[in-house]
């Protein structure tokens, strides 16, 4: 569906993205994740034919973004960053302009506007002027215009930025429902968004891809260590000493002065929970709680990005 090979874009001498390659299959919802300035927007602008690449190829639906730009633009619905709209127009007027500009058959303009306003929850504001709408509604208008000619590919640049938490949830819900029949790439630097909405994630930093995988696989794979939370009833120093002495344990941390909670970090591949429990019980202390803690996507991301930076330095 979307194939990117060795894509490079430089602004003057400054490289924005370097040798990016990835593939997005039909029906996938892919999160394009990276810190600000990582090259996410540049990549999306190339995919939507707004910017030509310096070198490399990008194809959407088999059409090259440089050679068959018109064909690509026909199959892509694009929500640019910051949602530019003609704010002096009413929602209806703007959508009817967008529909005509996108070449929607003039007899179908009205039905397609009815459909997208319905899908995006815009029925109530159709005759309002865009400038007077709240940010959440503007975002929906932006999505609605992207959906007008029912494109099989949607490219959304930071679709939830600047919205209040309730609106964020609504927009994510909307994107998820749209993703059932479409291929979607959305860029974001908000991590929970990726784990909630996307099946696959591409992490970029400084114009390079540093990881591509399914969201849960990535979280799993990237954990180099595993954390276990314990609550042990017993003398603190001795507990700490005993646990640290066990093979496979990297570090024991006392979390709380008053409660008897510890965090034990251990090597990923070795499961020593049984040994932990046994050694505590053998000493005659009370083992009150034991649970393992999954590394969140957020932590994985920070880990990846910092690792990358360290390597380069």
């Amino acid at each position, binding site marked *: 569906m979307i194939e990117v090979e060795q894509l490079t874009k430089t602004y003057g001498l400054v490289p924005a993205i370097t040798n990016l390659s990835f593939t997005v299959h039909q029906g996938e919802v892919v999160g394009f994740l990276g810190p600000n300035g990582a090259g996410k927007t540049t990549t999306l602008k190339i995919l939507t*034919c707004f910017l030509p690449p310096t070198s490399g190829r990008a194809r959407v639906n088999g059409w090259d973004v440089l050679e068959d730009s018109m064909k690509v633009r026909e199959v892509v619905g694009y929500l640019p960053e910051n949602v530019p709209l003609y704010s002096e127009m009413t929602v209806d007027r703007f959508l009817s302009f967008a529909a005509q500009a996108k070449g929607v058959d003039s007899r179908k303009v009205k039905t397609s506007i009815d459909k997208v306003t319905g899908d995006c929850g815009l029925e109530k504001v159709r005759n309002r002027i865009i400038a007077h709408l709240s940010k959440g509604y503007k975002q929906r208008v932006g999505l609605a*215009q992207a959906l007008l000619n029912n494109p099989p590919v949607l490219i959304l640049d930071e679709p939830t930025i600047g919205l209040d938490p309730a609106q964020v949830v609504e927009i994510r819900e909307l994107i998820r429902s749209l993703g059932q029949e479409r291929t979607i790439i959305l860029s974001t630097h908000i991590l929970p968004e990726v784990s909630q909405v996307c099946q696959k994630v591409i992490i970029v930093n400084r114009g390079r891809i540093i990881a591509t995988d399914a969201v849960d696989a990535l979280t799993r794979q990237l954990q180099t260590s595993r954390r276990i939370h314990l609550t042990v009833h017993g003398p603190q120093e001795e507990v700490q000493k005993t646990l640290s002495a066990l093979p496979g344990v990297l570090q024991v941390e006392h979390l709380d002065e008053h409660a008897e909670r510890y965090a034990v970090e251990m090597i990923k591949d070795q499961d020593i929970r049984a040994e932990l429990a046994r050694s505590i019980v053998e000493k005659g202390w009370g083992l009150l709680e034991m649970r393992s803690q999954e590394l969140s996507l957020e932590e994985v991301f920070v880990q990846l990005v910092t690792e990358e930076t360290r390597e380069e330095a």
Partner: protein
Amino acid sequence: MKGFVAVFRRELYAFFASPIFYVVGTIFLILSGYFFYNSVAYFSLISFQAAQNPQMGAQVNLNEMVVKPLFDDMSVILLLIVPLLTMRLLAEEKKNGTIELLLTYPLREVAVVLGKYLATLMVLVILLTITGSYMVMLAGFGKIEWGPVLTGYLGLILLVAGFVSLGLLASALTQNQIIAAVIGFGALLMFWIIGWIGSVAGPGVGKVVHYLSLLDHLEPFSNGVLDSRDLLYYINFSLFFIFLTLRYLDSQKLRG
């Protein structure tokens, strides 16, 4: 074609929905009305004098004394106001980022540029049509020849078409509307007065600058003369700057 119509209609809507058109249009009509009144008042004064002096009467002519000066005056007002109408065409889109929508829709750039160009031209033609009422009034009180009036209007429309094309290029160059207006106005004024050095420059250069001058090509039209050289000049002038606008948009894309 469909894309062109969409851009054209949106642009017309933008003109009529924004106060710029009404302000600019009102000022244009007030000024041209004032010039018209002035010419007519002068004409009636001369007519009274001519009534006492039969020899002078032969020279009194509405076309020469009212219509032609009015066309000259209107061309100068248009020189001042057209950059104000064209300044937002592309600069505003660039500033607001809506250009990103336009250029990622399946629209050809030609459709975008021509849609904007012709919509602006249409707005100006509407304003010029309103001034046609002056001519009708004039015809009610005296005898005018319609031929030179029509060619005069044709000349003004061609002139305005040239103004708009240059203004459009100026608007493509920047995202600041004021800069677009200043560049547009400066460049138009330069093309307006470039013929002035014709009399002091050498014969070769003199011919060239006269040919380039927007002003020199207008005169035949208000005299009722349709010359293909003048027609071609204005058409080429417009096409050249529309072409440059397209090239500029393209090159900007490549630079990123």
